[in-house]
């Protein structure tokens, strides 16, 4: 799998992502600065990592969505390419329109840094193949603007077409308000594009891929991608 991590000014979780991808694939991903206007030939996966692109001084991800490289990412996605956006990367995906909805300020009006649990709502995708439907896994979250919002029509479509990838849950899998720290609509933590090749989520599975750091709960996402894209 040839993975490319896009680095915007202010991106800060690109190394975490590279560690997770290398742990799953045995190959170092390529780091690509946002000024580039094309992706390397043979790119299998584009990753938009976490951070504060352009300081997030405008709406989170709004500036990065206008970066030169994003046209190439949109073209890549239009050709059926696989794209993962985590945290700020998810925000950028919604700002570019590659995924619907928006990430609002956390309902607590505070930055939230803690482990959360997510229930796998859609197994069998390139991002979730190594989980079973309903599995619960843990991951750190660290964001000020992770409160997923979309209108009724979009929500009905996401639910109707089974495009919600992950929901915030209790450790035993219950979808409760208390498990939904940032106030996301319908406890939505991550969503998929209709072709199941674009995924955005707020928490950081890339920061939980090593028992030494507290567990390997996040690793299945990356092994799923490696196995799915090895044959793609």
């Amino acid at each position: 799998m040839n993975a490319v991590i896009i680095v915007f000014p202010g991106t800060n979780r690109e190394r975490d992502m590279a560690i997770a991808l290398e742990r799953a694939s045995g190959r170092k991903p390529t780091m690509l600065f946002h000024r580039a206007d094309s992706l390397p030939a043979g790119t299998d996966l584009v990753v938009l990592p976490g951070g504060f692109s352009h300081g997030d001084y405008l709406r989170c991800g709004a500036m990065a969505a206008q970066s030169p490289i994003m046209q190439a990412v949109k073209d890549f996605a239009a050709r059926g390419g696989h794209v993962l956006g985590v945290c700020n990367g998810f925000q950028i995906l919604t700002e570019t329109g590659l995924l619907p909805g928006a990430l609002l300020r956390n309902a607590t009006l505070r930055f939230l840094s803690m482990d959360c649990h997510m229930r796998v709502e859609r197994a069998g995708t390139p991002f979730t193949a190594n989980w079973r439907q309903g599995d619960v896994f843990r991951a750190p979250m660290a964001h000020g603007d992770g409160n997923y919002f979309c209108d009724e029509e979009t929500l009905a479509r996401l639910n109707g077409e089974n495009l919600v990838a992950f929901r915030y849950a209790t450790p035993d899998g219950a979808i409760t308000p208390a498990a939904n720290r940032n106030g996301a609509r319908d406890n939505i933590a991550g969503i998929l594009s209709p072709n199941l090749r674009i995924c955005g989520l707020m928490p950081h599975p890339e920061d939980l891929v090593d028992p030494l750091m507290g567990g390997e709960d996040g690793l299945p996402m990356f092994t799923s991608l490696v196995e799915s894209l090895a044959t793609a």
Partner: protein
Amino acid sequence: MSTLPIPLDTARAKQLSAEFGLKGDEFDRVLAILGRTPSLTELGIFSVMWSEHCSYKSSRVWLRTLPTKAPWVIHGPGENAGVIDIGDGLAAIFKMESHNHPSFIEPYQGAATGVGGILRDVFTMGARPIANLNALRFGSPEAPRMKRVIDGVVRGIGGYGNSVGVPTVGGEVNFHPAYNGNPLVNAMTVGIAPKDRIFLSAAAGIGNPVVYVGSKTGRDGIHGATMASAEFSADSEEKRPTVQIGDPFTEKLLIEACLELMATDMIVAIQDMGAAGLTSSSVEMAGKGGVGIELVMDNVPQREVGMTAYEMMLSESQERMLMILKPGREAEAEAIFHKWELDFAVIGHLTDTGRIVIRHKGMVEADIPLAPLESEAPLYRRPTAETPKQPVLDAASIADPVGPLAALTTLVGSLDLCSRRWIWDQYDSTVGGQTVKRPGGADAAVVKLEGLKRGLAITTDCTPRYCQADPEAGGAQAVAEAWRNLTAVGARPLAITDNMNFGNPEKPEIMGQFASAVRGMAAACIALDFPVVSGNVSLYNETEGRAILPTPAIGGVGVLEDAAQSIGLALKPGLDLVLIGDTKGWLGQSLWLREIAGREEGAPPPVDLAAERRNGDFVRARILEGTVAACHDLADGGLLVAVAEMAMADGTGATLTAPPAGVAPHGWWFGEDQARYVLAVTDGAGLVAAASAAGVPAAVIGRSGGGDLVLAGGSSISVATLRAAHEATLPALMEGRAA
């Protein structure tokens, strides 16, 4: 072009010098050095360079007595941060620095720029920052403005550290009314660099270009260093314009651009523009290198129109660095900074005159000889008065009004012992993917080095109430506790940074606190092989004449050959609990005495440095041989609080044996005797035997299991109940809600 600056009228200059904070004969020294009356810019330069904040004029004679050397010390005090050898060809670069005064005036920006400033001190030496910590002291939450200060400081630290992408992995918080008018915000950064690629600040190479990079210069923070060198009065809010504004995004770009440039061979010297901005960076770099420096203010990137040379030299605008480059490399370096969308400007060159010359709009605005600016700087050995010794309290003579479990419940919910989760949940502690022990999981934070097995353990410590009662014992205790916390995770303690927060040094009792604290720290550093490699002094922490508790905050760094060998403090079921160290039941200055008996008095617990060393070395060896499942040092609150913290961490209870004969029960449970640890092991008897052979006091005091904390005799409390009390305090206080 005029060749001499235009002097101020002498009477006006003398009056201004007092406003700028120059005292006593300091203005006469300026006249003697220049041989004439200074210009406004020159007076500004002298006053900030000779401010307490920049010159350490009251503290230097004492700081010199601290031990600063060890075989693993690469650079001790005197550089932007301390540098130690941590193995694998790497160096750890670290320092702690205060931003007390700005954080009280404007909590969010004060705390945020404190984090930004200490990050720059570390990456300016070539290190990638890998961890931030912070040591905070707040007043009573009921004091005016204090909740707003707490909220703003925590948001500011998070707002800056989270954005810049350096994990905030630990720290400490105390509350005491002595900080009502003067909270303390001490920020620490640890970075990693190849040990043969350390960048220093001494300028060299006559003619070499002086380069300014980073943010533009504005009018913020002018005379911030002077403000930080004076007491507060009731009108301190009027000083808000002296507080700087932080921009973590620019800092992040600056880190990446500087590290990219540092991978080349273009840099001769580099220093961040911290307190006193362009003035201190240019004066210190040229002064250390023994060269002259000439700067053209017209070339300084400016955020506002019409700025004067005086304003530019005194501005403390954030996220700026000054570098000396090798000649002819300007274009290559500029390309890197433009890639990161940062300003880059050649603003001058080095000269052989030994003078700093500031030019602006065709005029010379300052022309000062550098050597006397440093050598003639004021240095005071101020009068000291010893703190009177307090009586030793006998636990047996103090009534226990409530019994151990009721006291425990109160203590774990008290401000100084309650869960800090509300705070650390606002700090990104995992960015970087190397955080092995997060806040609350162990006595020290543990961060692995990317791509290696090796890890660092990091902690900050100080017990100000001990320092108030006995500054010498308190100074020693702060160092010993840092050493103990590193030991308790299995790390080998290497070195410390100190952040000396005290009141007005012109008062003999305050200067006496300072001198005594340094004496205690020095003794502990020597006994524990734990030298001081960097530090910061913050004096004049007083508002309307009331001083803070003396607070020599210690930041300690230790190394683990294999981060996987580190252990945390959470109990697991089925283990023996072994108490290491001698327990006399010392209640003087304990939290039990304050929170349960309502008394703040007595001598603090003595620090036996030989016992500290012996017990700690024994504990560390057991951890590294892999026989210890959990370890926690005994500090605030004593034995029962420590066991409760181990229980609450993972919900596993314990049954404890009765206090031994000869120790008052409340002294046994809550005494704060030093040099002690609780270890959870599978073979308690074996551990006690090994301890005995090593001359280390040890006893099995209980066994883990169940969901309750059970005392001999059968009284018990559920860990869930304790946890509820422990977690409720800060959310209730700050959000008005349950945890």
